[in-house]
């Protein structure tokens, strides 16, 4: 999908994601806690995205569909995403000149998504694909 809005994504870990992870990664609960992106209210309006609706996130490395979440704080141009297999699909994997592997911060193109949230099985299939 061309276009979309450029956002800086920062990953974080939330307790309920870890609780669901302990219960099992192949569950709806883990997906619900992981496959989300917290967006700034103004950014959501600009992109025409409502809370709970699918958002398509794309980088040169990959793309996923996750659910939109409205942040209580204002943070235009920045989005927060749980560190998970979903955010990992968007990371480049390139080691920087300083030898550091970036896992916390990256730039995505975000737009209103079609269909449903990417499943972990779909992510595994993409990784397995030749």
């Amino acid at each position, binding site marked *: 999908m061309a276009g979309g809005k450029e956002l800086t994504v920062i990953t974080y870990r939330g307790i309920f994601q870890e609780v669901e992870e302990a*219960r099992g*990664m192949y569950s709806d609960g883990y997906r619900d806690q992981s496959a989300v992106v917290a967006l700034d209210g103004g950014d959501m309006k600009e992109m025409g995205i409502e809370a709970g609706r699918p958002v398509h996130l794309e980088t040169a490395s990959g793309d996923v569909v996750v659910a939109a979440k409205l942040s209580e704080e204002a943070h235009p141009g*920045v989005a927060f995403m749980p560190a998970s*297999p979903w955010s990992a699909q968007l990371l480049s994997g*390139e080691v920087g000149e300083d030898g550091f592997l970036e*896992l916390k911060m990256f730039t995505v193109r975000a737009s209103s998504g079609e269909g449903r949230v990417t499943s972990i099985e779909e992510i595994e299939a993409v990784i397995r694909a030749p």
Partner: protein
Amino acid sequence: MAFCTGCSLLCDDIVVDLDGGKIGKTMNLCRKGHAHYSSIGSGRLTPCVDGSEVGVEDAMMAAAEVLAGADNPLLFGWGASTLEAQRAGVDLAKKLGGAIDDPSSYSQGLITEKIIAGDLPTCTLDDVRNFADVSIYWGDDPSSSHPRHMSRFSYFPRGEKRQRGYEEDREAIVIDVRKSPTAQIAADGFFKITPGGDGAFIEALVASLAGKIPKVEDKKRMLNLGTKLRKAKFGAIFTGQGLAHSLRGDLSGFVSLVGKLNEITRFSVIPTLGDYNTRGFNQTLFDETGHVNSVSFKDGVRHGREFSIARLLDSCDAVMVMGSDPAAALPAAIAKKLERAAMVAVGSHRNMTTDFAKVSVPMAVAGIEAGGSCLRTDGVRVEFDGLVRSDHLSDVDIIKRIMEAV
């Protein structure tokens, strides 16, 4: 009292009702710890070779075969392993002439290394509870990752010199890019920074400590923070992934700030580490090699980023992952390399890495199903027993059995 390996705080005041050998009602476990305890009943890993279920012994023999046939094996993981298994893992890496690494190579390894090497001052969490009047959480959200951090040690409890409770006796400062649950508690002590802005914050704080005007928007607030830190009697800085990643491995500014603080008063650094025994692995490898991660034993002892999982997957010909899930945490391009590698996964539960492994070997959950010892996130050694009977082998038994067979 039972013991929790749900995070690196290793809470040891857990009360568990054992109902016919099964875990019943628990007291004092946090939400995350309770989920960790509950997890022993579901999603467990089964022994498999090439997708077919086999006996555990056969799985261990297949694992040994994969490793023995490799020229450049990588042994990765180890944060969720006992000290005994970590020790055996280092011995296995030496025996194989392979490399050994852990997730600290892409998180807080450098900070931990400086602490172990004595380049950053540290103290125990018990010291923090007894003496600390200022706690700084930097790129760190222990309320979410280590839920009892603030209640057991760093903010709310009474201690020897902190008898009057947090409102009068302690100060919490949170430096983060978002208003995390920890920042929520700190209220007025929250300093919001821009993504990647930690270096600039350090500079401003150093200026403020020196009585110079800091180059930030809210100069007054930064000067007040400087004054607050100067007046601290016993300060503690808790570091998280956020700080480690923002500084991208260049700790010079941070080390210098901590040095300046210690010219004025006492400030210690304690990293908030993820897995329950990350600190144990870093210490074990450091004691053996002088490095906390990314070591190759191929030609003597070599250390460098080229031996970290992010770089080594291009050249290694077999991987053993021990109690970790790099395929879920690392960028898809690296997960793809793992998926294609001759991989052995030892773990307690099914995850993306075990799904991609050629050989999977199930292990007991330490602290619940098996005993052992480990180091808390502040380096304090803790020993523990298993709580329930389990058919699963302990991590150290698995590594030793594989080592015998290679």
